[in-house]
């Protein structure tokens, strides 16, 4: 983070808020574990989103009040949740039919790296000895209509996460549509990364400098 303190940039909450403002009313949305979960807090008033959790619930609500937790009502991150009016439970094959069949409007995921052609790496650093675990990420990026990534623009060490070509094991090929970082909102286009919006006080040059692939200005 030290590299970023010199620049005014979006907080995680602001990134989530920026992303939330781009989601249309009535969308069916799957939020990944971590920063993506923050998005639900910032949905603009007047819009209703229906949240899907791949372990078998559509119409997922917020966390339960203390004492009302049900160990059999959890989300994909294994955290206690609630069910909103209009919710439905279903089994895993039906849940992934929704995902693979293109019925969800949006998947929001974190990333280790995003390639300029939309490749995503977010499930493994490929370290020898690490226990590989993939969950539903590969299904989500292969099936959901639109895939947004929300992530810090660079790693803790300042290395770019938006790169020409991912070096980490891939989650999917050419699947990412847009990236929301602490510095900018960037579209993945046939011409590569295209800047859509800068965080306040952040310059195009700063974003380009911290991006591992050419960045174009939005047409």
């Amino acid at each position, binding site marked *: 983070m030290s590299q970023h303190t010199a620049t005014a940039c979006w907080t995680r909450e602001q990134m989530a808020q920026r992303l939330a403002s781009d989601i249309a009313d*009535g969308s069916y949305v799957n939020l990944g574990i971590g920063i993506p979960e923050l998005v639900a807090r910032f949905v603009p008033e007047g819009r209703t989103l*229906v949240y899907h959790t791949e372990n078998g619930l559509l119409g997922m609500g917020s966390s339960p009040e203390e004492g009302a937790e049900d160990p059999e009502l959890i989300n994909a991150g294994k955290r206690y949740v609630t069910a909103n009016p209009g919710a439905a439970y279903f089994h895993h094959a039906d849940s992934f039919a929704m995902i693979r069949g293109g019925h969800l409007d949006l998947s929001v995921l974190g990333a280790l790296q995003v390639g300029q052609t939309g490749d995503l790496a977010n499930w493994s650093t490929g370290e020898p000895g690490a226990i590989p675990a993939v969950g539903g990420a590969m299904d989500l990026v292969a099936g959901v209509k639109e895939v947004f990534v929300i992530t810090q623009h660079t790693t803790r060490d300042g290395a770019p996460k938006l790169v020409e070509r991912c070096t980490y094991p891939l989650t999917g090929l050419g699947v990412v549509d847009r990236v929301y970082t602490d510095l900018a909102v960037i579209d993945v286009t046939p011409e590569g990364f295209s800047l859509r919006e800068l965080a306040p006080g952040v310059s195009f040059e700063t974003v380009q400098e911290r991006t591992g692939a050419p960045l174009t200005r939005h047409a």
Partner: protein
Amino acid sequence: MINKRVSSAADAVADVSDSAAIMIGGFGEAGSPIELIHALIDQGAKDLTVISNNCGSGEVGLAALLKARRVTKVICSFPRTANSTVFPELYREGFTELELVPQGTLAERIRAGGAGVHAFYTPTAVGTPLGEGKESRSFDGREYLLEYGLKADFALIKGRIADTHGNVLYNKTARNFGPIMAMAAKTTVIQAERIVEAGGLDPEAVVTPGIFIDRVVEIAEPAHESALVATGASYP
């Protein structure tokens, strides 16, 4: 605020275009969305491909749509039924083409289309005329046919109760193709006898989750095909 309710069957099918592929629920008369089909007849779209288990009976509902010469192809498993005279005539005349599919393969192709499974290997119909010309492959000494997922532009389905989010409950054996066709169409329309607010259905008992449904229209007292046919009714 999510509200998928539309005010009439006519509104529900207003944007069906010529040459559309339409899945129509029902097994015989059970689950046949007669009012939606009649609205589609009124609407006028033609050159339709209809995917449905049967081809209707008498001259109402699906048989009436065929009789109006709106359907140039049907994909179905059993086009013959008691009181089914419309389809045979159109078929012999060459107006309506038939793609005959074993019932289980039809169901699985529709589910595959809805589930993002492009194709699958099934043992059904191996060595039969319906398997002829199809790609086949042997696994572990048994032969399978490669069958492809089916999708459609619209699905017209009859439910019992729906909520405004599009969650659906069905009635007994009228469920049949409804839940899978709902998954496989770009736009899925449900006619239900009652529409309730979100929260009015038990989330454990929902059969079709709302994500698969685009429009719900209340038809409080749907006609039964056999009763109409018995009176000699024809539509329009």
